[in-house]
């Protein structure tokens, strides 16, 4: 690990820009996000408003910063929920490999996978009402089988190793072995998968907000900014371009970071570079 891969550095920098923006927005934004000012509406990017203003005269930079907070919060909690549910399920399935519990868990996974994720997310938010919390739940549910599969796959190959057999000879049960031996050795897989799911979570949040089922006004959200910009795209293209770029760059950054992490964490790929 003498030199970090370029992808990791670039991805981490991009991600850090948005993470810092989100954190700063907690304490300070250039303008009040909810402050409407019809007099300065639809201004192009300039000295006072770096990214311009929208049709209510709100400062776009400030909205992007707060929007980053929304996106990151939704994605982090959703991925966390997927991990908390999926990883134990995957470990349980691997510990009972070939048995009934394994079969039930994995077929349950297939069932969740079989539904188009976004459509079900729309259904959930439509039934329980649109809100950031419901978006989190919807995205989290669809993250669960992804983590269950990755966990089971990684764990299955470990279960055949001699040190697992040695642990069984030392009288350790499947649960203890899963936590002491399996989990630390698949952590790298989970970290890489986590970053990738994180970027998918941001996309999903943007998509739900775009159709009005994510975070509700007045909380700014990248997806809704895009939706609102739609009707004014000819007059003020920056309204669409800026949140669009924010989404693209965040997702790109996270994916690059995931790739880079895999390069340094996976010993099988390390030598091939």
């Amino acid at each position, binding site marked *: 690990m003498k030199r970090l891969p370029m992808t990791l550095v670039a991805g981490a920098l991009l991600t850090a820009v948005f993470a810092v923006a989100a954190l700063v927005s907690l304490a300070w934004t250039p303008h009040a996000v909810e402050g409407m000012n019809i007099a300065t509406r639809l201004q192009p990017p300039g000295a006072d408003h770096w990214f311009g203003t929208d049709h209510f005269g709100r400062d776009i930079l400030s909205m992007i910063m707060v929007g980053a907070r929304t996106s990151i919060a939704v994605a982090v909690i959703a991925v966390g929920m997927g991990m908390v549910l999926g990883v134990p399920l995957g470990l349980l399935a691997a510990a009972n490999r070939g048995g009934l519990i394994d079969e039930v868990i994995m077929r349950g996974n297939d069932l969740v996978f079989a539904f188009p994720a976004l459509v079900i997310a729309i259904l959930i938010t439509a039934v329980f009402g649109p809100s950031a919390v419901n978006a989190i739940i919807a995205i989290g549910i669809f993250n669960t089988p992804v983590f269950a599969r990755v966990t089971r796959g990684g764990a299955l190959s470990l279960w055949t190793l001699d040190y697992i*057999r040695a642990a*069984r*000879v030392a*009288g350790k049960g499947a649960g203890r072995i899963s936590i002491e031996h399996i989990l630390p050795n698949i952590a790298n897989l989970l970290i890489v998968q986590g970053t990738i799911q994180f970027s998918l979570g941001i996309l999903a949040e943007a998509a739900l907000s775009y159709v009005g089922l994510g975070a509700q006004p007045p909380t700014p959200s990248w997806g809704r900014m895009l939706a609102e910009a739609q009707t004014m795209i000819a007059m003020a293209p920056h309204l669409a371009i800026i949140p669009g770029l924010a989404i693209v760059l965040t997702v790109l950054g996270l994916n690059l970071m995931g790739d880079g992490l895999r390069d340094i964490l996976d010993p099988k790929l390390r030598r091939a570079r």
Partner: protein
Amino acid sequence: MSLISVENLSLDIYGTPILRDVSFDIAQGKVFGLVGESGSGKSMTSLALMKLLPDGARRSGRAVIDGRDLFALDEAAMCAIRGNQIGMIFQEPMTALNPVQTIGDQVAETLVVHGVAKRAEALAIAREKLDRVGLDGARFPLDRYPHELSGGQRQRVCIAMAVALRPRLLIADEPTTALDVTTQAQILDLLRGLVEEEGMSLLMITHDLAVVSGLADHVAVMQEGRIVEQGPTEELFRTRAHDYTQRLFAASAHRPAREPTVTDEILLTVEDARRSYALPRRSLFGTAPKLEAVRGVSFTLRKGESLGLVGESGCGKSTLTRAILGLEDLQGGSIRLFDREPVKPGMANALRAGLQVVFQDPYGSFNPRWKVSRLVAEPFHLMPHPPADARDRVNDALVEVGLRPDDADKYIHEFSGGQRQRIAIARALINRPDLIVLDEAVSALDVRVRAQILDLLARLQETHGLGYLFISHDLHVVRAITDRVMVMKAGEIVETGETEAVFANPQHPYTRQLIAATPTIPAQWQMQEHA
């Protein structure tokens, strides 16, 4: 008349020296053996000849074949030579074939790629070659897939691929190391026959002196990237001029000094053990056929005794081992330590504490994220409370297996294969068990390291009064370390007795077959014994 001559081959990989001034000639139609321990550079020498070196490799020297220097050729010219002039077979027949292509296609591919035949014609030649390597058309049609073949049969397919174009040089890198002894004997016969009939030269790379002694005309001994000694096989084996060669020979014939103190107390009783597995159903409604892995095995092992279990892969010894370790249920019969409760999965920890194990693979036996102190202490889990002097006992165990107490704070990747096997033994000893199952425990080690580990095992047995169940396919090792031996075939013990008696006078035809198939260095070559 030499076919290929390698002159002053040196190789660095990312600045690490791998080979230094390696020079040898391989004569037309002769077998050249390259012997050495792991990491001595034998495989890298062959990869350098094929120009298949890993990234970061820098090479100097010459390899002349037909007046052309292979190292001066570009990749396109080299592609024409690979397969055509030089063929190669590898150690692991399980991964050397493409699982989604039929064996016929894979053999024919070589011919098509080199443009010597169209597909139909190539398939006809492939058939011929497969017949030649002993895979007849009736049982092995061209449309078989690799997974339908055994390891030995796959290695035959690899050989057919390598010789399809009648290359002038065949490189065989440990071609029989992954195979059973009887299969090994057949493959060695096949290679010998091919060299004689086709006038091909063979570069035979192996760690096994006995294999080389029966096959090679010339031998070179490699150590740390250099050839320390080379010459005609018999002459080299008789004189052993170089100090390293002597040590290699001494180690491969090494027998630990043992003074077994076998008591009369029965430590392990296996009674009529049975275990079968359901195979996939052949038809929708038929009952699933069964594979009877262990069919009524009974034996006893006494305290302080070392009992060998030999057999080839698939004979059921792994299943039996798992049952004895209490990792798997039996379907009939019982396994007991002393006169305690039967051994089975879910047995009480106090019962389990009497049993420990050392596995074959020193690299897969340890959690890479734990320190040695924690790895060695793992069996303390079997005690109701971890002992107060746990750390002292870990240190003692490390000292006992020849390591230092401060090794406890290192991670496992800092140790060599032999040191790891010592750590595995320390882990097995820490709880002072009565029985240690040694499951091919020295099979993956180089001869000199193996000799040291065998000495260690012999010493520990005396000081601790341990019982060993020594499972191995290597008859030399079993003969060196055990008091009694059992021969297992197809789930049954076919012969059992005092080790020396069984080896000197085998009764069962299968035992005789095994002993006959085991390569040995001719006894008269050993006459001039060096101190």
